[in-house]
């Protein structure tokens, strides 16, 4: 098994075992979205109209919640020191860590979306559109979060600072994610237009996030 495959398997195992946090994000997503109908009252038309935005906000907050698992834990127990002495490019290491993180915390959000669409009175077509935008958008959120996680890695309990740093950077992803969902539901713009931009943002955040996080880690060491 190659070093990067071993890292992927290890991070996946850590996330799905007791205390790993793979379920925390999706449970939080479930609760936030469930609370909204209670807060807004039983206006089904209104729920259907704001549904995509609520699902996106919920997914955004849920993906923030687990960011401290990405790098801070490895820093606390000394694993990061050893990772820095490995003969693997740091960029590849952080990219693999972020991928494993997305698989355990981002993908469950996409899978939970159809269930939550029911609670928000979304049409099957609308639910599918939101799920598709989240499938493309959650990797972007993970890789943008990776930058924040790397910058705050040396700070003990930097979890809150990560949220403040990361949330403003996720605004473009949020705008085009919700815009694509709404385009599929009410128009008049074609779904493909905002969705293509969302795909572009996701690809860009993977490249920028990987290199920025590796650079931040190299400077954070002390």
């Amino acid at each position, binding site marked *: *098994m*190659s*070093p990067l*495959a*071993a*890292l992927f*398997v*290890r991070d996946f*195992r*850590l996330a799905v*075992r*007791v*205390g*790993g946090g793979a379920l925390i994000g999706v449970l939080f997503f479930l609760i936030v979205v469930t609370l909204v109908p209670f807060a807004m009252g039983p206006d089904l038309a209104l729920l259907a109209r704001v549904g995509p935005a609520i699902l996106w906000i919920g997914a955004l907050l849920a993906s923030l919640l687990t960011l401290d698992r990405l790098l801070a834990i490895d820093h*606390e*127990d*000394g*694993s990061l*020191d*050893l*990772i*820095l*002495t*490995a*003969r*693997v490019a740091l960029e590849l290491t952080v990219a693999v860590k972020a991928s494993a993180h997305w698989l355990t915390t981002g993908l469950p959000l996409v899978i939970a979306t159809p269930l939550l669409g029911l609670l928000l009175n979304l049409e099957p077509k609308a639910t599918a559109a939101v799920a598709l935008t989240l499938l493309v958008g959650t990797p972007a959120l993970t890789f943008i979060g990776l930058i924040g996680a790397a910058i705050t890695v040396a700070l003990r309990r930097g979890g809150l600072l990560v949220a403040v740093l990361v949330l403003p950077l996720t605004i473009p992803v949020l705008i085009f994610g919700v815009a694509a969902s709404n385009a599929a539901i009410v128009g008049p713009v074609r779904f493909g237009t905002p969705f293509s931009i969302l795909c572009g943002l996701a690809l860009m955040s993977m490249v920028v996030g990987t290199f920025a996080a590796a650079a931040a880690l190299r400077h954070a*060491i*002390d």
Partner: protein
Amino acid sequence: MRLLGSDLACFRGGRQVFSDLSFTVEGGEALLVLGPNGVGKSSLLRLVAGLVPRFAGALRLEGGDPELTIGEQAHYLGHQDALKPSLTVDENLVFWSRYLGSGQETQAALAAVGLETIAQLPAAYLSAGQRRRLSIARLIAIRRPIWLLDEPTSALDAAAQAHLAGCMGQHLAGGGLIVAAAHGPIGLAAAKELRLGGAP
């Protein structure tokens, strides 16, 4: 193989930890870094491993792999064990051995430190000494020429200390070199000494 440090200086948290520090370690030789608390022993090891930025001076490895940094040719054994409590003893060691090396000899290394009977136990249940022994198994499982050991004998009982001394002896006999920070003898017979912070 020879590790040379000349006029090294280290700043941490805006404070100068040490300056004008020079040393030479040849292959097959051990350097014991001694001195009171807070004098920079750990900082020196981290600096050699590339985990702390070098403020001044030069650090060179002669006879090593020119493609790799010194840190990539070194084992760093710090105060933290880099073990995940939810993974088993075996999974922890196999991961590090695959990630840092080629993934060979983990069973032999576990047996060498006497942990083969609890290989399937989650690392959360290990004692401090057992965690230390598992870290030492990493040094045995993956071959790297430089060992940077930060108080390697802490938490180890007499038998484990003697065993560690044997491992270090084998490593030196194979041409490797060791830089160890300690407060006293750690079982290296003919170690050079580097005293930080003036005369004792």
